């Protein structure tokens, strides 16, 4: 599925979006008004230039279009793996990008992300998971690491991991695991302008607290985190 197909399906009323160096930026018309559209395509491995292009576009939007909702399209295979990138502190540019998404929220910009193909670790952390809400298409790949690589690193038999992954969302790759654990709101069976509009309607009135732990408990995918957070908050002060 090409980016243009994605954009046409999500924004039939029109879109003006640039793609440069796998970074998407622009705007689109929806039944809820104009939205900023940004993100990455072609399984981008996020590097400094991409992170700064995204963060710069977010800052422009905050300055020039106060309150305009942000729609992130996520297709990232993670972070760029190179010495020159690490030399310049890649984690710093990703943190800067995350700070910009967070600032937009504080300044009244509702945001949502849609994983269109891949969402992997560092790339996903820096913007997709920073949005008010995240969604994924049905065939999207959401993961930290596939089970074969995980078996190699953890020295646990691949068959055992496959067996456990069938029942536990804790490490099983896939968007469904992230829904059960509260990090993805829902899986969209197909691209749909109607779904996007109703998602936008929900995020604009959403309470901005991070409630992913509560959702993880409600959906029975993350049974411990919510209670641990509560216990820390409720523990008697020294």
């Amino acid at each position: 599925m090409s980016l243009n197909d994605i954009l046409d399906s999500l924004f039939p009323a029109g879109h003006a979006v640039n793609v440069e160096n796998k970074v998407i930026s622009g705007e689109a018309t929806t039944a809820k008004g104009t939205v900023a559209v940004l993100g990455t395509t072609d399984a981008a491995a996020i590097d400094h230039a991409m992170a700064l292009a995204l963060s710069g576009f977010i800052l422009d939007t905050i300055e020039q279009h106060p309150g305009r909702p942000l729609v992130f399209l996520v297709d990232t295979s993670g972070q760029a793996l190179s010495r020159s990138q690490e030399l310049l502190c890649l984690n710093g540019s990703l943190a800067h990008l995350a700070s910009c998404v967070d600032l937009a929220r504080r300044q009244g910009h509702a945001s949502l992300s849609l994983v269109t193909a891949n969402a992997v670790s560092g790339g996903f952390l820096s913007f997709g998971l920073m949005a008010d809400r995240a969604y994924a298409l049905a065939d999207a790949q959401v993961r930290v690491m596939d089970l074969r690589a995980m078996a190699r690193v953890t020295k646990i038999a691949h068959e055992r991991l496959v067996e456990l992954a069938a029942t536990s969302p804790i490490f099983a790759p896939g968007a469904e695991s992230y829904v059960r654990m509260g990090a993805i709101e829902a899986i969209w069976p197909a691209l749909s302008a109607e779904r996007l509009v109703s998602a936008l309607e929900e995020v604009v009135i959403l309470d901005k607290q991070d409630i992913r732990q509560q959702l993880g408990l409600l959906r029975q995918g993350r049974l411990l985190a919510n209670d641990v957070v509560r216990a820390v908050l409720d523990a008697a002060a020294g």
Partner: protein
Amino acid sequence: MIPSLAARHSWFEATARARLAGLLDAGSFTEILPPADSQPSPHLALLDLPGAFDDGVVVCHGQLEKKPIFAIAQEGQFMGGAVGEIHGAKIVGMLRRAAQEKPAAVLFLIDSGGVRLHEANAGLIAISEIMRAVLDARAAGVPVIALVGGSCGAFGGMGIVAKLCSAIIISEEGRLALSGPEVIETVAGVEEFDSKDRALVWRVTGGKHRYLMGDCAMLVEDDIAAFRRGATEFLASWTEPAPSVAHLRAGQQALEHRLAAYASYRDGLQVWAALGVAEPESVPLLDRDSLVALKEGLPT
């Protein structure tokens, strides 16, 4: 007593609990969810691995020079300090509590490779929650100071978290990056990054390099007392800024300039020369005080 003769207590070698004992005012440590009241991670048990009662992180109240602070200390010796479900939730809880109770600071003793792969999804989501909780604590006016000098450094998602903090205090032994050199070598080849070349690894990810480039606010000796002095000194002159476009614009410009100037470099030596260091090859040999003096003399 002459300070140089005093026994130094290495931060790098110490456990998380020993670091806290030396960092906070004596007797002020009060742990939240202490080991005796906690259960190890059931996810590790399912994979047939022994857990730790504190799941590899100690969260506590305490005091620093009589000011109330919160502290979070990751144990690098347990599963590389990696973030699992309980581990992450303890950190998130403490940061949220800080946003409510407003201590003078949160000291975040990071010693972690990032996500605990055995609990990969839970770890990744927890790190995302930690990222938001750090920014919420800071927006509430509470400085969050990252202290990095342990054997696992601050890598993966915890490298991002470190850079979301108000400031990073690092030792020469500390390392800060996103992907570990081993991961880059495995994927991109030994020519790209030879993870066994320790000197190179330090020139790319080490404390001196990060301090010279301005990614870390302070460089301190590998000594628990030095981290304590550094944190005290930093907080004495720091007021947490409110989140603002102007602040992030300035950050954006600095990062863009840096990328334009240094994008083709592959070794700290090249960056240091470009920063104006006359003898870049001498940097790895300089002691902490000489390096700080060198940095302070650089053109800005």
